[in-house]
């Protein structure tokens, strides 16, 4: 194997990711080739040099900052829901919430099923059957009175009999 090919393999040789055949070839070549040994040392030293770039440390409040950012990024309804969850689920108030909900539901059901009797119907209960019949036919009775009071209807017979008079 030529030096150019070996040089391509040296970084991988250092990381021990070559297959056994390639590994043996590079190792054998390095025992006799000074140029490739030099290349290996340069790459190794360069790689070691990179450790001088230090890590940075996150701020001590990164966890709380995360939760703040998360809640401020969320839409309003989600924030309300989260607050709700926090109060009722995290703080163990879920049984209280469930009880309140049950009371509300039962209240609504009772209100809907109870029968409200109108005042007029309550008054009718105290009437006897003949009075009830009169009330049911009150419209008819009113119409009868109106018909009786209209004068022109009484004159109608006269008009109808006009033809008979002429003849």
């Amino acid at each position, binding site marked *: 194997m030529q030096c150019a090919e070996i040089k391509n393999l040296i*970084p991988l040789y250092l990381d021990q990711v070559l297959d056994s055949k390639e590994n043996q070839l590079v190792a054998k070549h390095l025992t006799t080739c000074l140029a490739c040994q030099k290349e290996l040392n340069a790459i190794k030293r360069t*790689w070691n040099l*990179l*450790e*001088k*770039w230090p890590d940075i440390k996150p701020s001590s409040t990164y*966890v709380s900052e*995360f939760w703040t*950012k998360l809640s401020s990024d969320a839409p309003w309804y989600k924030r309300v829901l989260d607050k709700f969850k926090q109060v009722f689920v995290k703080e163990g108030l879920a049984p209280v919430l469930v009880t309140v909900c049950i009371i509300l539901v039962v209240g609504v059901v009772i209100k809907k099923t109870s029968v409200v009797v109108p005042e007029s119907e309550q008054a009718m209960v105290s009437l006897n059957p003949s009075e009830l019949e009169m009330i049911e036919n009150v419209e008819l009775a009113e119409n009868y009175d109106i018909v009786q009071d209209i004068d022109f209807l009484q004159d109608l017979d006269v008009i109808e009999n006009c033809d008979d008079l002429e003849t």
Partner: protein
Amino acid sequence: MSAIDSQNKINPYLADPAVILMLEFQKGDNTSFEKLMVLYYPRILNFINRFVGRRQVAEDLTQEVFIKVYHSAASYKPQSKFQTWIYTIAKNISLNELRKYKNSTVSLDGTFATEDDELKKQWEDLDAKKPGQDLVEEEVVSQIKAAIDELPENQKMAVILLRYEQLSYDEIAATMNLSMQAVKSLLSRAKENLKVKLANLVNE
């Protein structure tokens, strides 16, 4: 054999402690999520900081990574090591940021601006600048940062993942969605490039 045992046999990632934490979080345990943050936040922060080169941006992007992890919990399925999964998210977010940044401010040669002042501003890192720190040491760090930053995007990412995040070649391949052979080729060229760029420091 119980159903859980057979599932464990099928999915080896269920043995990963971070995957276990993520699954606990999926069931609603926020303390597991905070444990994941403690384990991975510093690593992701450093990975992004080295990749984008700006501390404040790195802080924001790291928060973004964890917000994404948080929102992914409902649909999370352990199909890789947690580390691979979270570095993939961090990689995608960093690449988006870098491309957005380059499109808005940097010349067409595809690298950061080369003016010294601009470079210093971009690499501003308050932690690295301690009072009394040897100026020579600071200059060495500055040259290392510049050398890594000048690498092509893929080489740069592979170097950061290997050298600073201690990912294996397999994990780098999974994170970068590349074949093992492609990662070997990338890292071989990256190491050769760095050797040339940092020759003045190595040969001193």
